[in-house]
């Protein structure tokens, strides 16, 4: 089969925060770069981020990157790699100031500096007391940031391929990455984008769960493509459930609401977080708050006719503060919960939000397999696992991750492209043909499974077997079930065979990515017999040697799931930072 080939220095898949930040480096360096996105760049899900982006600017009170680093390591339940975490926290003030220079409309303090608000797990002086570290543009930080980055790319003349969906990664016989196979959505034409360096910045995969704060397009395409091309996925058992999704709708209510003084209450009106986290209370780390909420609900203190949610109360705040600092939240609450938060509390439940795991990289954005960089392959943002978030991400550290690792991966790509031979090598066809066969199977399939049925089965299985609390038996059952769903996915079919903007075909191709993510998650979770961060199991007992069920002797290591045979391998956590001392293991409490 012959396929048209387009040639570039660099191909970036994804135009969210991470992809756009990387693109800026490459465009400004004058390299021929193609940025592919399933949606117009400003429609990427970074647009939905609300609360803020962290940096120890210290605009309101003293702060230091070392304290930020401590909070991040602690938040990660020590699974984060301390070299990458140091790098991110040190770079934070630079990249945030840069973003301001790009035109980001941050809120301002009276002295004209960037406004910062408190957030869960952000403390000064190594865990002492809350500090204002989250730089915010009202409660629309992601929107403001994504638009500012897109705008800067317009200025830099970045070449976008809007509404192009990457289908598969292309590797040669040695495993070097040569680019991607991609489909133009409007025409269904398939092309190869060949490049010296390829970056995945495809974002999250929250749509493996039935209830999620993620957009429809968050289907883990980068993870699926990587897995099919033989790249392992790291720490996929770790999913963050955000404490405050609107009950029933899944739409997110930012932690910034609690940062501005919001309080969680149970059916008795009690501020229950005082019992679970006496110090940080409502601003404890997300995994801690989500578990407390589920415990309240399970013990019968939930609210509403079905006692299935708790309430987020800001009625005591000044209405003017709500209108100026949380206008988007008010809008969401009115539209999706039928509640004006100035007058009544918002019904909320923990909702799947963020994937801590992903494609294994180092802090330079290079994809690492068997301790070595995969030549020509880079990943950044939510699809990547550097790993700065470990077992639990701190709020606002993701937008920061996009800026820091978007930039560093862009720089790594520039260095690599400069030393690479001027001419592109001969294109290896094996992966291209595998990809074309995938599309062809879908076109030919009949008497198969409906896309919607397979997707619903996957989402229900993940929700039931792999949620906020995990149970040994349920996980084992979950593995069997998800492998059954995988069989369904192998025969999914579509009725619509049109070549013009065929969204049914796109959804089918997305489901083939989601199922890889679902398998990686369930199988990795089943194997990890401890509790750590967002992964909490009933059979991991709280003992003096294993506080909170965390088993450092056996499980202080990263999971690597391989698609081939569903094999699991492990690699050590990098405990040594770049310049400072190791932040030593400690029991985590807030």
């Amino acid at each position, binding site marked *: 089969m012959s396929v048209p080939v387009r040639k570039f220095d660099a191909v970036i898949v994804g135009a969210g925060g991470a992809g756009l930040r990387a693109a800026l480096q490459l465009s400004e360096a004058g390299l021929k770069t193609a940025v592919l996105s399933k949606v117009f760049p*400003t429609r990427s899900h970074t647009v939905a981020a609300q609360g803020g982006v962290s940096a120890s600017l210290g605009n309101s009170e003293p702060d230091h990157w070392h304290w930020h680093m401590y909070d991040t390591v602690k938040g990660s339940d020590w699974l984060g790699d301390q070299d990458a975490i140091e790098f991110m926290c040190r770079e934070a003030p630079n990249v945030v100031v840069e973003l*301001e*220079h790009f*035109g980001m409309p941050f809120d301002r303090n009276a002295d004209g500096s960037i406004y910062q608000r408190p957030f869960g797990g952000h403390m000064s002086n190594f865990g002492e007391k809350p500090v204002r570290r989250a730089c915010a543009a009202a409660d629309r930080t992601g929107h403001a940031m994504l*638009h500012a980055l897109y705008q800067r790319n*317009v200025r830099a003349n970045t070449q976008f391929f809007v509404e192009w969906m990457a289908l598969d990664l292309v590797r040669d016989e040695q495993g070097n990455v040569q680019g991607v196979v991609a489909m133009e959505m409007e025409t269904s034409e398939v092309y190869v984008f060949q490049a010296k360096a390829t970056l995945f910045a495809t974002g999250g995969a929250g749509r493996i769960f039935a209830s999620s704060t993620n957009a429809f397009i968050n289907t883990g395409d980068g993870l699926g493509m990587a897995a099919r091309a033989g790249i392992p996925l790291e720490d996929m058992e770790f999913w963050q459930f955000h404490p405050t999704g609107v009950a029933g709708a899944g739409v997110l209510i930012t932690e910034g609401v609690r940062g501005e003084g919001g309080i969680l209450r149970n059916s008795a009106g009690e501020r229950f977080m005082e019992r679970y986290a006496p110090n940080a209370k409502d601003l404890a780390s997300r995994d801690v708050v989500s578990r407390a909420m589920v415990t309240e609900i399970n013990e019968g203190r939930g609210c509403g006719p079905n006692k299935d949610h708790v309430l987020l109360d800001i009625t005591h705040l000044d209405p003017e503060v709500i209108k100026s600092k949380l206008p988007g939240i008010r809008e969401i609450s009115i539209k999706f919960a039928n509640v004006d938060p100035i007058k009544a509390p918002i019904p909320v439940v923990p909702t799947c939000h963020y994937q801590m795991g992903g494609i294994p990289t180092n802090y330079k954005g290079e994809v690492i397999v068997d301790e070595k960089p995969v030549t020509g392959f880079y990943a950044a943002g939510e699809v990547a696992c550097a790993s700065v978030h470990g077992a639990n991400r701190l709020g606002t550290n993701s937008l920061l991750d996009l800026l820091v690792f978007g930039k560093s991966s862009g720089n790594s790509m520039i260095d690599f492209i400069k030393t690479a031979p001027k001419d592109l090598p001969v294109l290896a066809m094996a992966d291209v043909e595998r990809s074309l066969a995938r599309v062809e199977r879908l076109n030919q399939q009949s008497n198969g499974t409906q*896309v919607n049925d397979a997707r619903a089965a996957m989402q229900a299985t993940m929700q039931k077997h792999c949620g906020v609390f995990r149970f040994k038996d349920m996980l084992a059952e979950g593995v069997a079930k998800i492998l059954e769903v995988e069989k369904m996915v192998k025969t999914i079919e579509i009725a619509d065979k049109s070549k013009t903007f065929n969204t*049914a075909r796109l959804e089918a191709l997305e489901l083939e990515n989601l199922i890889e993510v679902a398998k990686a998650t369930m199988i990795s979770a089943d194997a990890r017999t401890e509790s750590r961060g967002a992964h909490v199991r009933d059979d991991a007992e709280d003992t003096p040697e294993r506080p909170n069920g965390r088993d450092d002797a056996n499980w202080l290591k990263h999971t690597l799931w391989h698609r081939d045979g569903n094999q699991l391998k492990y690699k050590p956590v990098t405990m040594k930072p770049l310049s400072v001392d190791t932040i030593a293991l400690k029991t985590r409490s807030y």
Partner: protein
Amino acid sequence: MTTRTVKFSIYRFDPEKDAKPYMKDYTVELDSTDRKLLDALVKLKVVDDAISFRRSCREGVCGSDAMNINGKNGLACVTDIDTLKQPIQIRPLPGLPVVRDLIVDMTQFFKQYHSIKPYVINDTPAPDRERLQSPEDREELNGLYECILCACCSTSCPSFWWNPDKFVGPAGLLAAYRFIADTRDTATNERLDNLEDPYRLFRCHSIMNCVDVCPKELNPTKAIGKIKDLMVKRIA
């Protein structure tokens, strides 16, 4: 779970097989949790996977699912089904070429957005820290920066329908004023020059359709008025 039946009439057109567009009737069973029009469209797509529309965030921030709903432009994901008269008539945004069903070609719309140089221009060397801006100056950007580029406004504007290649349109002009109003931007004059033209700015006759449909409650007409004021002041 209580269910209800809702009737739709949806614009359909696949250039590969349809000689011309047509309206097709649908009836769909909805649960009590299906509150927004997008929920209904997603359900319809399970029955007929050929119905084509864009969507992503499902919370009114990405700007993907703008369409014409009972004659008025809006976002499907934030429109309550139960407030709409049935059969609910759904058409693509008016004035732009239809690619398929509810999907329109947005090229002209984005071209106009790009034409106003949508980025902060400031050639003075950047300080080591952030550029300072007072809270009052920052406040000037409220009501401007929140635009999600959904095109509800421009595709409800008669001036944009007639001259999509020459008139910048409400979304683009709102963005133009967003940068003029930013104290960090030093290119106001250049920006006004760029709009000093019988079409680019002055085709707006303040009909206010744009204000009426904006799902983010922004006011392009007001921003356009402010640009016109600056033009007048500049001459005087």
